[in-house]
């Protein structure tokens, strides 16, 4: 036990004297956590700029444009006389789309003839497309229903009956866990875990890379590898528990990060992820022959790792074989479990598979790490 605390203390010294590691594990964690949220700070796309080409120019069409502008989704920034000019504005990037109200819009609707509203939207940006389409859809449906109900009432149908005919049932949509549909709430829980996982991996990879470069043994004799590995890792796990406490306990009160305060399972999953990741990096560090290698190889992996846990992109759409392989990266089961507990309010029992998977990874990588470290020691001696 004394040995364990000695190693822990020594690792603290190593950490405090290595500026590169501090840059990643302290400055990096803090800055990335703050910065990464910045693009999403406005959360949802509201008021996407569009133009309207009103070929009808009646009071009815003008009211339609006003209603369109009143929705949260779009803002009618320009009223243009022709398709050509709308296209020009679109190329210049001033508008994300435009609608064309046909001639005789008002006349045809009152005559009971279906009219076509032409909509040109840039769908390369799917979020903008969705916003504009929803806004236009909502306005046309409301306008259509109003015309219809007015007609029925004129025919002598009671208003209540007319309403029920137009809308036979209420479709009540209840968005859970992220009612406002914010983008930050969507990606942030994933990104925070990814930042913690990746910084841990890169920094520990740098430390082992340095040892490989200078041929410094991991510990004096091979028998001490397990306890040294465990004690050193524990130091970083304790450091990262400070971040965990901030993210899971304090952060939700400060920002809009969703949180269920189901603390115990959260920290169990988080702790297991950290141990598994630390042992995992000790295994792959075999390939890091200079200190900088870890940075050059691991930074770029984050992007692919982000999509594997099935939060941003559904697992159902990923080939099964990739899903199986991805479970060997500690952050995958961790994000799955932590999001379920944190955002969806799952109980420990409901995330048992993720827990078992992480436990398995810890054992697997611990054994492999001991084996790899011994092999490195042999190579140093050559």
């Amino acid at each position, binding site marked *: 036990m004394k040995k364990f605390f000695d190693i822990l203390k020594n690792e603290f010294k190593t950490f405090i004297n290595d500026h590169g590691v501090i840059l990643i594990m302290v400055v990096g964690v803090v800055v990335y956590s703050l910065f990464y949220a910045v693009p999403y700070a406005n959360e949802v796309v509201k008021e996407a700029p569009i133009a309207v080409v009103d070929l009808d120019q009646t009071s009815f069409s003008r009211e339609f444009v006003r209603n369109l502008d009143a929705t949260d989704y779009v803002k009618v920034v320009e009223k243009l006389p022709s398709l050509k000019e709308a296209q020009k504005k679109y190329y210049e990037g001033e508008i994300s789309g435009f609608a064309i109200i046909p001639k005789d819009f008002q006349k045809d609707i009152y005559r009971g003839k279906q009219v076509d*509203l032409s909509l040109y*939207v*840039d769908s390369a940006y799917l*979020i903008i497309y969705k916003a504009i389409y929803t806004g236009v859809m909502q306005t046309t449906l409301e306008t259509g229903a109003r015309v219809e109900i007015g007609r029925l009432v004129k025919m002598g149908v009671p208003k209540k009956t007319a309403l029920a005919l137009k809308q036979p049932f209420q479709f009540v949509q209840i968005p859970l866990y*992220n009612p406002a549909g914010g983008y930050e709430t969507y990606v942030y829980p994933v990104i925070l875990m990814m930042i913690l996982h990746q910084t841990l991996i890169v920094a520990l990879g740098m430390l082992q890379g340095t040892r490989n470069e200078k041929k410094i043994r991991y510990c004096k004799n091979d028998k001490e590898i397990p306890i040294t590995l465990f004690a050193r890792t524990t130091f970083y796990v304790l450091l990262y528990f400070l971040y965990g406490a901030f993210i899971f306990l304090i952060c939700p009160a400060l920002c809009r990060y969703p949180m269920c305060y189901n603390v115990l399972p959260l920290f169990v999953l988080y702790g297991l992820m950290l141990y598994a990741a630390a042992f995992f990096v000790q295994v792959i560090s075999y390939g890091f022959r200079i200190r900088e290698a870890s940075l050059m190889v691991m930074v770029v992996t984050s992007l692919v790792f982000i999509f594997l846990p099935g939060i941003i992109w559904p697992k159902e759409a990923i080939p099964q074989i990739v899903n199986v392989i991805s479970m060997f990266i500690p952050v995958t089961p961790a994000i799955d479990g932590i999001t379920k507990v944190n955002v969806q309010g799952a109980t420990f029992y409901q995330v048992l598979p993720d827990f078992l998977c992480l436990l398995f990874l810890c054992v697997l990588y611990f054994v492999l790490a001991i084996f790899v470290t011994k092999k490195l020691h042999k190579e140093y001696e050559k």
Partner: protein
Amino acid sequence: MAYLDVVKREIDRILSRPLGWVVSFVIPLSMCLMMCIVFGKGTPTDLPIAVYNADHSELSRVFIRNLNTLQSCKVKYQVTSFKEGRDLLTEGKVYGFIAIPKNFQRDIYRLQQPELMYYYNNQRILIGGIITKDITAMLQSMVVGLDAKIRNKKGMPMEAAIAQANPIAIVDHVNSNPYFNYLYFLALIAFGHILQINMVMISVYIIGTEFKYGTTKEWLGLANNSILTAVLGKWTPYFAIFLLVYAILALVYFGLCGVPFVGNAMVAVLASLVFLVSCFAVGIIFISLNGNFRYCLSNSAFYVAMGFAFAGITFPTMSMPLFAKIYGALLPLSHWIQIMLDQTFRNFPFVYDLKHFVAMILFVAFGFATLIRLKKLALDEKRWYQE
């Protein structure tokens, strides 16, 4: 010739240490191909949802049948209680849950507007959005169909009945990415992000190691003390490697994945070449901070690692705060991706992309201007072996 000597020396260095070709070829290529595999399906289909049917009427069964015809979702569980459905949502086994109330059909015919409850996991915006859009559209057409049928029965011709049931139809002239394929769009930005990271870091690496091992003078000497020759010679083999990566990715993306290309191929190729050089130039700017490989590499990694979020594709630039817009503009990636999206999907006239070319060329110009400082550092032996 001095230039060829530097090229030859660099090739020897690539062959003697694996890190260079691993980071310039193996890693970017495998990461990009991984993206293609992960997003290979393009659009998620058959996403699991649950239904609680408390009505058991003809109409509720038709409704469930209609749900199953939708491409995006599939009724995987028909649960027997409300709680069971909510638990499935919590456990993440389904993304949506619909509860059909008791007497649903009867209440509709009595014009009592019963409530159909739909719960969905909106934390996963993309998934929730896809199934909600599909279900809503299906319900709307069900309602319009019902309405038109009633009118038709009352003696109105079918065409007029449809017109009155749905007075305004939206004719959707989708300008780009008509298949709503996430692969098309995400793979392109992912390629750019992955390549930008590797190109910038490689550029820092090839010169940084000269400082780290104290060989800058030997390297400059071989180039007759011309920093321009020395840098261009170093770049040449990596330029060739990245061209090979480009070629393979283009084959996979436009060939294997079948992404349609509607714009001007010359513009896209030119943009990609300028992108490559501008990323190399950014690397020069970073290593010229102080010549300390470790320090400069960390800083450059910091700068490019957030590219994906700040290039404004996953989240459109127009909704970003000012700071994020500025950061985005300072990444070559943001400009390259605009040109690529404009050319691949939108067929924009070239003039509208000119500003993005100018921006990328500015990175190159700034990088070349920094060479003067780099030469000064390279001749200073105090910059060697820095920890």
